[in-house]
């Protein structure tokens, strides 16, 4: 670019993952052996890195690339933007690679499609005068068609219809270069940023002729307000008056922003489009221009079109150039996930917004995206994927909740770091890494306190996910692996007696006992401080103790009677999809008996567990071992497995929460194949922090025990209140 270099590179990252493997138990003393073996292995995953820095550092950067370029097959480097021409010789000389120049606009659009598809909360609307300036949008499953208005030195308006089909439909010569060039002439201020600074301090009404200057008031018949600009610079039509730099800069900013907004609206109308994304250096990270463009779009479209901006707008060209270069590896066939640990937040380099970061390095900014092992798609049962919002509370909006949760995560941090270090007793550097993790996550929390919008909408889920990303970054892939192993072992031993006591009950009593068991199991959550304190101090705390903690009926949210009625009166469900939560008692003594009952009713069950570890949540590979062991004890489970009436799948996620719009494709296929007509979501993370309001096309059960007194209080209950939400979609 003109002043910043954006570099995209692909690397393989070696990091530790936790693996579980079943022992060969033949001839061994099963009683005293752990259930399965845990090992930490090195795994290689793919990661995309994007970094942004000032052009002055380009030589240092090229040296870095030279040192780290491991693929000796590489013969070319893809480059785009104005600098591709400027630095061509330098790059070729330093790296010994041929520079392949790629078309700017093609790269921009490829990059845009990529971020729109892969980064949740990529898109935001800007509202200066509201409490939350950044309004993040949910990703629409279909990103096309859209209008991209790129405001560089000039303006390009491109209509994007599909991945490969886009068309330049117009443009304007009045753009960022006009603001900069004309601004420099008028104010003798040389730098773009300084011009914006001037503009934000000026009064355009001293320079512009307003409607009220012409009419004395509003132009009533046309409904034009008196404050509207009738003629930009209309008051400077005199040689004898001096105008302040600030006022002229402001007037110029309005003139250009309004003009661009007007043209964008005219093009949007002509092509019948309602999504307009704005980018280019005029916009990039500048609240001032985002504000004036938003105003203009609102004015000219009468609110029908929304001006939208992208969090990673500055990277689009580099991402696109990278994708062009990597075409034979087809990066678009994968799903990618933003890594919060390795990415700078929105506006991290903006001096206006981020004064505290300024001291670090002027404009250094980065983005990391992990290649996910499997593609992610929507749950086919979502009622309306385009309006589905996983998270229940938007912490960017809700200042009180934000303060609480940030403090809550801060207070839990020492404990998490301690547990992380303790989980790797054989590793010498574990304490050091744990401390680094603690610092990194602490810093993230401080950033989020200042700038809640740094990574999209702030939610309990994003706080949890960021913590997982940070733990992984310092090679703590699964701090709870041993806890889970132990708890799974203990719970398995109780399985048969629990089943026996359930089987001794009458039908109606059993149904209630099953639900209560499911809820009691859900108490065992190491993520909740109230519980982890108990579990740390009272090792004997078990299933029965948990049951006694539960709120008595009527529960805080209680549609149990309707559920019972449904079981009693209705036909068996065709297939139930269950999202499991914790390891140990939760999955083994809570979920499995429930599954067993469903199977006995003739309902098929898809049991979905996380692909990767998060807290003490049961992972897919753990669930395989646990199920195998239960099957050995229980003929119902065994035959269901054999007949493929009980299916174990992975969610594609490694989060304690659940985003139903990003699920493993295999799961989605199965859900459709088996005509799933019941979804059961269990646990605070999956059923309260997320999906509490999720609307599905089929019956659903959302159950959880509230293990946090602040949250309970907020919902009007006490700690260990029960949520039992049975929902039937309206016909």
């Amino acid at each position, binding site marked *: 670019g003109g002043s910043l270099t954006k570099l995209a590179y692909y690397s393989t990252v070696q990091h530790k993952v936790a693996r579980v493997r079943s022992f060969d138990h033949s001839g061994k003393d099963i009683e005293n052996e752990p259930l399965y073996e845990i090992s930490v292995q090195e795994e290689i995953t793919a990661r995309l890195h994007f970094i942004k820095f000032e052009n002055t550092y380009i030589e240092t950067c090229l040296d870095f690339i030279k040192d780290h370029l491991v693929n000796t097959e590489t013969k070319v480097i893809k480059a785009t933007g*104005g600098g591709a021409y400027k630095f061509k010789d330098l790059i070729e000389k330093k790296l010994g690679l041929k520079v392949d120049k790629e078309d700017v*606009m093609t790269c921009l659009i490829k990059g845009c499609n990529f971020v729109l598809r892969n980064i949740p909360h990529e898109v935001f609307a800007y509202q200066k005068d509201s409490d939350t300036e950044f309004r993040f949008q949910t990703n629409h499953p279909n990103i096309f068609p859209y209008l991209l208005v790129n405001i560089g030195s000039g303006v390009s308006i491109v209509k994007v219809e599909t991945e490969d089909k886009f068309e*330049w439909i117009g443009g304007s010569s009045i753009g960022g270069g*006009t603001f900069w060039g004309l601004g420099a002439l008028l104010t003798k201020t040389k730098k773009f940023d300084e011009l914006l600074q001037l503009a934000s301090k000026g009064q355009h009404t001293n320079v512009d002729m307003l409607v009220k200057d*012409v009419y004395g008031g509003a132009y009533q018949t046309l409904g034009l307000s008196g404050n509207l600009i009738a*003629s930009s610079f*209309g008051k400077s039509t005199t040689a004898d008056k001096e105008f302040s730099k600030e006022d002229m800069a402001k007037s110029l900013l309005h003139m250009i922003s309004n*003009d661009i907004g007007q043209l964008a609206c005219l093009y949007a109308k002509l092509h019948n489009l309602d999504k307009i994304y704005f980018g280019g250096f005029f916009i990039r990270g500048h609240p001032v221009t985002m504000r004036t463009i938003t105003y203009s779009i609102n004015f000219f479209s009468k609110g029908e079109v929304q001006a939208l901006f992208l969090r990673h707008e500055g990277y689009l060209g580099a991402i696109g150039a990278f994708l062009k270069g990597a075409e034979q590896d087809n990066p678009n066939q994968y799903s990618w996930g933003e890594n919060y640990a390795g990415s700078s937040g929105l506006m991290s380099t903006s001096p206006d917004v981020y004064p505290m970061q300024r001291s670090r390095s002027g404009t250094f900014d980065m983005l990391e995206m992990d290649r996910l092992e499997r593609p992610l798609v929507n749950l086919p049962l979502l009622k309306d994927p385009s309006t589905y919002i996983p998270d229940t509370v938007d912490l960017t909006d809700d200042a009180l909740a934000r303060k609480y949760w940030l403090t809550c995560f801060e207070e839990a941090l020492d404990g998490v770091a301690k547990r992380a270090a303790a989980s790797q007793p054989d590793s010498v550097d574990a304490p050091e890494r744990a401390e680094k993790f603690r610092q990194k996550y602490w810093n993230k929390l401080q950033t989020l306190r200042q700038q809640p919008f740094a990574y999209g909408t702030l939610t309990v889920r994003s706080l949890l996910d960021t913590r997982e990303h940070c733990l992984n970054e310092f090679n703590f892939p699964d701090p709870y692996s041993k806890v889970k192993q132990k708890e799974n072992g203990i719970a398995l031993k109780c399985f048969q007696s629990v089943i026996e006591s359930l089987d001794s009950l009458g039908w109606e009593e059993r149904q209630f006992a099953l639900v209560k068991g499911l809820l009691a199991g859900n108490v065992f959550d190491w993520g909740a401080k109230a519980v982890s304190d108990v579990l740390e101090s009272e090792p004997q705390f078990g299933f029965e103790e948990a049951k006694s903690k539960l709120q008595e009926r009527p529960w805080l949210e209680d549609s149990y009677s309707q559920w019972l009625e449904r079981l009693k009166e209705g036909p068996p469900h065709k297939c139930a999809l269950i999202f499991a939560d914790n390891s140990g008692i939760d999955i083994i003594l809570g979920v499995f008996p429930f599954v067993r009952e469903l199977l006995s009713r003739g309902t098929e069950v898809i049991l979905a567990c996380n692909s990767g570890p998060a807290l003490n949540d049961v992972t897919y590979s753990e669930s395989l071992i646990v199920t195998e062991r239960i099957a050995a004890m229980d003929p119902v489970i065994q035959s269901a497995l054999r007949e493929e009436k009980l299916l174990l799948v992975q969610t594609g996620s490694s989060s304690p929460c659940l985003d139903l719009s990003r699920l493993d494709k295999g799961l989605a296929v199965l859900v459709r194949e088996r005509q799933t007509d019941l979804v059961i979501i269990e646990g605070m993370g999956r059923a309260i922090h997320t999906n509490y309001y999720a609307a599905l096309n089929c019956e659903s059960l959302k159950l959880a025990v509230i293990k946090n007194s602040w949250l309970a209080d907020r919902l009007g209950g006490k700690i260990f209140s029960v949520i039992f939400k049975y929902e039937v979609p309206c016909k």
Partner: protein
Amino acid sequence: VFPWFGLDIGGTLVKLVYFEPKDITAEEEEEEVENLKSIRKYLTSNVAYGSTGIRDVHLELKDLTLCGRKGNLHFIRFPTHDMPAFIQMGSEKHFSSLHTTLCATGGGAYKFEQDFRTMGDLQLCKVDELDCLIKGVLYIDSVGFNGHSECYYFENPTDAERCQKLPFNLENPYPLLLVNIGSGVSILAVYSKENYKRVTGTSLGGGTFFGLCCLLTGCSTFEEALEMASRGDSTKVDKLVRDIYGGDYERFGLPGWAVASSFGNMMSKEKRESVSKEDLAKATLITITNNIGSIARMCALNENINRVVFVGNFLRINTISMRLLAYALDYWSKGQLKALFLEHEGYFGAVGALLELLDSA
């Protein structure tokens, strides 16, 4: 009751049309009060009034029949900031004693209404700006320009040798897009005499050109600004497509000569120091004109109209802009749109106000 005036008080200029009856009978002459006579004499025997008022003699419409009276229509303009002096003069000439109505349009009809009443003892009859504009255009076009066509267009607008101004017959005018370029710009879609709507407007108009020129070059009149522009070279100031891509940008079908960034070269200090005031004036003119052309073209497409009539005082003695508009509209629409112009550029609002007066009488 004479005198017949139409007044259009804009943001920058006041436009005044005056009907001078030429069929005054001896009796009428006899009865005509002294005040009225003196006003008529004053207006028709001068071509300039005070230091800033000007009568556009070349626009005068001769032997016009209006409301059964024969006479000449005169076109006079002066800056809006001299409005107080104008009202003062009206007061000194005892205009109010004539018991006539003064029909006025434009924003100033509202802004100065109070002043007319208190200083001039005159009650203004305010009429809507857009109604007047359309009425004026349709009327003047129908009576023609002293036997010539009021409406015209340019053939080969960019070719200095072959460029020709040719008459255009606007007999069946509808639908048309009317672009009025005063200090700011209003764009109207006109479907019939009564059926029209304001499509949009832009604040980048004549006032912007003149205002920016004053700041950039220190000029003090519109004429001076235009004169400087005519001697400048905007390609030194603007960044063209070919400056970025070395030629045409074929991927998007953009010709090398197209402006990619107005004032884009001025981002560089060296280039800022090497341009002349004339270059800056020219670039300002080109920027504003192209932008109006572009917005007008988009409106025409959205409204599905292919004739675009440009009026307003920005176009006065401004052949550069007219030819550029003609060319840009034709080029970017691939020949689908036609730019039309009218000889009485900025006076239609005032004419409309005069017609309103006669209609109401």
